[in-house]
């Protein structure tokens, strides 16, 4: 198979922080979060879940695909 951009399926409770800590452990959490957000604008630009939701403030959905590396050149 040709190489494609690396991605993951988030778990139900995942946040930017938990994914950065797990998948980008060689970076600081802040840097990891910033990278994740810039690689996943389709999620970052989404309005977060409303305040009354159990996922309040978190835009990541369990069905999302999240990239853990920048676009391939």
């Amino acid at each position, binding site marked *: *198979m*040709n190489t*494609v*951009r690396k*991605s993951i*399926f*988030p*778990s*139900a409770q995942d946040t930017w922080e938990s994914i950065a800590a797990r998948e980008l452990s060689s970076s600081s959490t802040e840097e990891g979060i910033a990278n994740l957000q810039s690689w996943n604008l*389709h999620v970052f630009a989404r*309005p977060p*879940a*409303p305040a009354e*939701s*159990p*996922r309040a403030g978190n835009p990541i*959905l*369990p*069905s*999302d*695909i999240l*990239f853990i590396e920048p*676009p391939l050149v």
Partner: protein
Amino acid sequence: MDLVIRNGNIIDGSGLPSYLGDIAINDGRIVKVGNVADTGTTEIDAQGKVVSPGFIDPHTHFDAQLLWDGAAKPAIEHGVTTIVPGNCSLSLAPLKADHRMKLVGMFNQIEEMPFKAFEEGVVWDWESFEEFITRIKKDLTINVAPLVGHSVLRLWVMGNESMHRTATEQETQAMQALLKECLDAGAIGLSTSFVDMDETLQPVPSRYADAAELDALCAVLGQHNRILQVVHEFYDNDITVARIDQLADISRKHKITTTLSPLFVNNDNFAGVDQAIARVVEQNEAGARVWPQVQTRPIDISFTFSVPSLLFIRLRTWYAVMRFGTPETIMAAFSDEEQRKQLVAEASNMMGLWQRLILRQVKTEANQQYVGKNLAEIAELRGTDALNVMIDLSLEEDLDAHFLSADMGHNNDDKVGSLLRHPHVMIGASDGGAHILSFSTYGDTGYLFSRFVRENHSMSIEEAVKKITSDTADIWAIPQRGLLKSGYVADVTIFDADLIDRGPEYYVQDVPGDGHRYVRDSAGVETVIIGGAVAYTQQGGYTDERRGEIVGGRA
């Protein structure tokens, strides 16, 4: 013999060259293809015409329309004899009474089906999938291969929690049991969505499912040899490729067919669609069954400001005004100096789009002079800019000014043609019965022949027929349809190869509750036979025959 079609140019759906011959039909089945000596009770002279299997449309949203129109008009007059509703995680069953209005809201948001159509066109006399099937079977002219929607399964099992969280193990098992019940009742597969939003602009329930839940449901599909349909993040190429990989893994694991729709040609990035197709080929050669659906027509969107339009979905202020407003509040927003300033500011960086919009319809005599002109031309005549003209005309017309954004993409004929012909592509994604206030979703089959067979020579007529008949039937495991073959169900379309086409798009009031929609008439389709009976003729229109069946796929 009940019916004999004579002297036709037979294109049997296999892709083999056409030949002259007759077709004999008895008891709803094809009994002979070739030279027929017997006389039929009814005889059709097809000399000079193509006789082909009925076309199959694999991506529709006729769910609601089937409750008041068992012919799914105007699908049949475009040669379509079988439709697949229930795509994109949305079906009308199974559905508890408490959730009806929630689903109506989702259909309104996603498919633009007006609330009043449900109020005045639907008698809610079902809950289970089987009851829904029984309900629509009462008056069915067209064949229906219904998908069951993932969002609906979640709603049934989890109630409002389906819109907030992942399922527990117990809830997943309940969904599996419910899916099995739907498949046993005639569902051809499961649909899910990774992109759609509900009427409150929150994700639809299927988007709160994790990969494990989808996997569990696909295990049930595997036990029944049924298909999974997804609508994916088609606007992003990398995500599309990742979804292709996800579907390939599911397909191999559960030995099921999967399909994703739509796949568009982006005129600014041909490499994107090439990469997606290359990935499909790679995965399918590695044992997966992943079928991207490609539509034939270019993207055109029409709108008024009286209903929310897809065109404004990324302009949050505009979309909120349209989505949550009444005609009065929308007019007020356009009239209020401050709000208008805010709207203009948000949309002003898309001036090129507004300038290209064409004013297609107004109701006042004063503005008829502008119909057919683009907004840049009208703006020049009025001494303003296109964005303000759009607002002004909408106010002057009480929001009944209709604008057309034509050729927004997927309109490079060479590229689209090569994609449609590709052996790993399914022709589909018409969205028939959906987006009824944005564009006509009818006539893609005629457009395939007129544009990609006759004009652009992207494929032969035999290839085109195969693509929308036996190929589709094979992919969806629809038994005994898609070929003109002895023993097969007699779904037949007779058309003029030189004339078949889609007609111009027009606005018509034929939706319950005095609702409107955009439609297209067909050209060149002479006779459509469903289940052995003539359902439509160009001369006489629709007949009273009701031979449509529920086509549930083969196990």
